[in-house]
């Protein structure tokens, strides 16, 4: 397993590209073959989570920060995103109704739906009244080969 890498930045939207690329670089740090689909999904999920922290978590409150830590094996990347915003459990967000027509389709609820859809694992931990940890995991290496049958 690669050593953890960590970055801390002010929770402002202009830092989003740097935070997203830091997480994606965790794949390279692991020595895994870069899988375009997995990299896409990691960038998308980290972008969604960090944008949510900025726009809804701190909601304009100045002085907040976001930290991202990645750890990886050649098969799996884990991204840990922490903030000091009021506690918010994303598993409470209902999925959007994706079957309705365009006139009634609203703009909300899509972000967390995408995060849960593209990542293999999404966990949330609260750190008291303020502070959230979102842990994202994604398979980044080739699918494991089946063990040969014996006997």
């Amino acid at each position, binding site marked *: 397993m690669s050593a953890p890498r960590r970055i801390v930045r002010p929770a402002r*939207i202009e830092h989003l590209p740097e935070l997203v690329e830091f997480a994606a670089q965790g794949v390279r740090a692991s020595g895994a073959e870069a899988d375009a689909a997995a990299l896409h999904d990691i960038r*998308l999920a980290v972008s969604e989570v960090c*944008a949510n922290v900025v726009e809804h978590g701190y909601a304009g409150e100045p002085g907040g920060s976001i930290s991202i830590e990645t750890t990886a094996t050649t098969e799996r990347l884990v991204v840990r995103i922490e903030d000091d915003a009021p506690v918010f459990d994303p598993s409470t967000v209902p999925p*959007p109704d994706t079957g309705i*027509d365009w006139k009634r389709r609203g703009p909300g609820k899509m972000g967390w739906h995408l995060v849960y859809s593209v990542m293999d694992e999404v966990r949330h931990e609260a750190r008291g009244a303020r502070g959230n940890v979102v842990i994202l995991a994604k398979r980044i290496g080739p699918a494991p080969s089946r063990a040969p049958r014996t006997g």
Partner: protein
Amino acid sequence: METSVEQRGHVIVVHISGSVDGHTADDLQRVFASEVDAGHHALIADVGGVDYTSSAGLRVLLAVLKQTRSRGGDLRLAAPRPEVRKVLELSGFTGILRVFDTVDEAVRSVGGRG
């Protein structure tokens, strides 16, 4: 994210590349808004160069879709990479807007020169 605008007859093609997310979606909204305000209601979003689009980008597409259709036009998508197409499917957008493999096909679908 970078954008460029191309006019083909009455059809406007907005070529988009890079990342469409919470940092860039407002810029994309402004590009589309200026076309809608100029009276262009047949719009094609060429997303062939898009690395990823987050929900912020999807919200822009939904808003532009509603604006153009309410004026008798449409917004159609062209050339999404497989990963971007997957996001469109996951969000239900392939059920509410038309997606084409190429820009030419998308332009022809609204009566423009492909």
